[in-house]
């Protein structure tokens, strides 16, 4: 048997619904239709009345989730694409994210963002919005890169007493497969050494993890040992694991599919530079998407975002410096 990243997300939701009567799913086309990506396939049939089609109203979807959470429920909101979370942004960052701090009322909502680029998706169906959400206090931002993490972290997200932005990568939906669902998981907020090495640390998350692992594989044939860190959650950011890796390798390359201004790569480098400057043998580097909207055509798109090729070039340059 093999299970995809997308099926893991569906299975996690099925388990959450089965285990906890407080859980319900609310989003566009999530009911009988099973969601735009089929992440809620058959769940409406399996859990009648608990998987609810919403109008195209992202603000009201999140608002309703907040109200339900105040009443003790644990809603999961599916945004059809991460890009369409912008009309719900206000409720997420100004309401859900401030509720506990202002009123001591926990706001356990999970907002699933089908994120990141796939070929042909263009400017409005490809965005990676994790950094924007992580900028705000009061939220947790998860960016699972593996089938196992997609499953276990989504279950954790539902169990957490705070708003969780769950960035699931659409490119991984069908590409990534595992033999079975995990029975145990690393704690939330802990990064994972996805591959051990001693010459260079590449910090990545979500789909970029797999590009980084491909580069590590490739450079291994040249005698270079790259350590790859999978951040798993970007907020909280596991600085300790990154720092420990940089202490071993002395070199840091941080890769993100999101845009370069600010963001996760900038944050990782800022932390390493301020707290671990002495560990570095060379200036830390980062690689992001180009600073334009995300192009539609595959020729442009594959150059817009970091790929194994561009990461390999950056890694080789950094190893030489």
């Amino acid at each position, binding site marked *: 048997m093999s299970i995809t990243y997308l099926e893991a997300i569906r299975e996690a939701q099925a388990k959450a619904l089965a285990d906890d009567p407080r859980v319900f799913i609310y989003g566009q086309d999530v009911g009988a239709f099973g969601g735009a990506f089929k992440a809620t396939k058959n769940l409406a049939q399996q859990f009648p009345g608990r998987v609810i089609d919403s109008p195209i109203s992202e603000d009201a979807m999140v608002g309703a989730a907040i109200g339900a959470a*105040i009443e003790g429920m644990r809603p999961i909101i599916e945004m059809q694409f991460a890009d369409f979370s912008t009309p719900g942004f206000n409720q997420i960052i100004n309401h859900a994210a401030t509720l506990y701090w202002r009123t001591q009322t926990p706001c356990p909502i999970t907002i699933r963002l089908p994120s990141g680029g796939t070929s042909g998706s263009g400017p409005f169906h490809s965005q990676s919005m994790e950094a924007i959400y992580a900028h705000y206090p009061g939220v*947790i931002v998860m960016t699972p890169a593996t089938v196992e993490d997609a499953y276990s972290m989504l279950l954790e997200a539902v169990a957490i007493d705070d708003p969780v932005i769950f960035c699931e990568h659409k490119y991984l939906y069908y590409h990534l497969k595992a033999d079975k669902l995990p029975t145990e998981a690393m704690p939330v907020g802990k990064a994972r050494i996805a591959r051990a090495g001693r010459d260079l640390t590449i910090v990545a998350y979500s789909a970029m993890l797999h590009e980084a692992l491909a580069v590590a594989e490739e450079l291994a044939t040249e005698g270079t040992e790259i350590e790859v860190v999978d951040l798993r959650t970007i907020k909280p950011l596991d600085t300790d694991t990154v720092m420990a890796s940089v202490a071993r390798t002395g070199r840091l390359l941080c890769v993100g599919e999101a845009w370069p201004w600010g963001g996760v790569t900038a944050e990782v480098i800022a932390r390493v530079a301020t707290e671990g400057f002495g560990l570095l043998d060379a200036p830390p580097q980062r690689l992001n998407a180009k600073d334009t909207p995300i192009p539609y055509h595959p020729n442009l798109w594959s150059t817009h975002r970091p790929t194994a090729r561009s990461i390999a070039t950056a890694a080789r340059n950094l190893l030489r410096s």
Partner: protein
Amino acid sequence: MLQAVESRESVGSTLRDDYLKAYRFMVLSRILDEKLASLYRGGKIHGGVFLGKGQEALSVALGLALQKGDVYAPLIRDGAGRLAFGEPIIDALRTYLGSALGPMRGRDGNVHRGRPREGYLAMISHLGAMISVVNGTLMAKRFKKITGVVGAAVIGEGGTSTGAFHEAVNQAAVEKLPLVLVIANNQYAYSTPSSRQFACSNLTNKAVGYGITAHHVDGTDLLACLNTLSAAVKQAREGGGPQMVVAKLLRLCGHGEHDDAHYIDPRLKNSPIGRDCIKVAEDYLLQQTWADEGAIQQIRQDAAQKIDDALTIVQREPTPDPFRENWCALASRHLSDSFEGPGNNVQ
């Protein structure tokens, strides 16, 4: 904790009792507003002060129509409704004066206060945002098979122009929720007159588009407000779906106490909607001989006394201590990010 206030429906009281009870809350709210304004002028309040002058009749009528178990999302001008819903006077004073013991503990101020777990939502500033949250509480109650409850949200005519308003009213209609949505059309949104806010002849027209029931009421007339709001709440409670109540009135104060409201058209002030609802109520009390001048005077004195008593307590209370603040925005404290780099640790 919210105080128990018996709602009209539950006690089967006479109209006279209801009217007098509502009038007491209106007076309490007005005197509290005046106290807050004077504290503001005396430099005792950080940030803004937002009053509900002229809107007490509408506000109190909603607060009194609600029962325990209902959900209430008041807005800036709902001092009277908050008191009628059971908010103790001291909550308002503590929040305005930044007492560490208030419900918001200095983390938020003025009208941004509530006790969400008791069904009393704490507004965020962003207009329109509270309505869908009320919807969510009602969806949750439906999941939990709790029936016979309503949720009420209040908004100004300016707030009806937001996308959030539209999304939420439509959502309530689609889900057939027992939502009571009170729109206080006080003619101005800050300085913007209604003519620059919407182009329909009456805001109740909007209800037609959403497929929900609308009610219209003279917001200066307490009797009309009591009747309309209790009817709307009853209809929602009995499964009639979302109810929109549009009240016509005039804001009898600035947007906030920093604002002299010079832009308000004097013709409106002199028109029937410019009447002070408290004066209208007093005239009615006298006319019905439900109270005489002495009784009205006594009500005012009692209200002022209660407010002074609460203020005396609050003024002796500690303000928040930044060194004892935990500076953590998460309920799951163990998941907070750490920014303990050398640069961030300097106090």
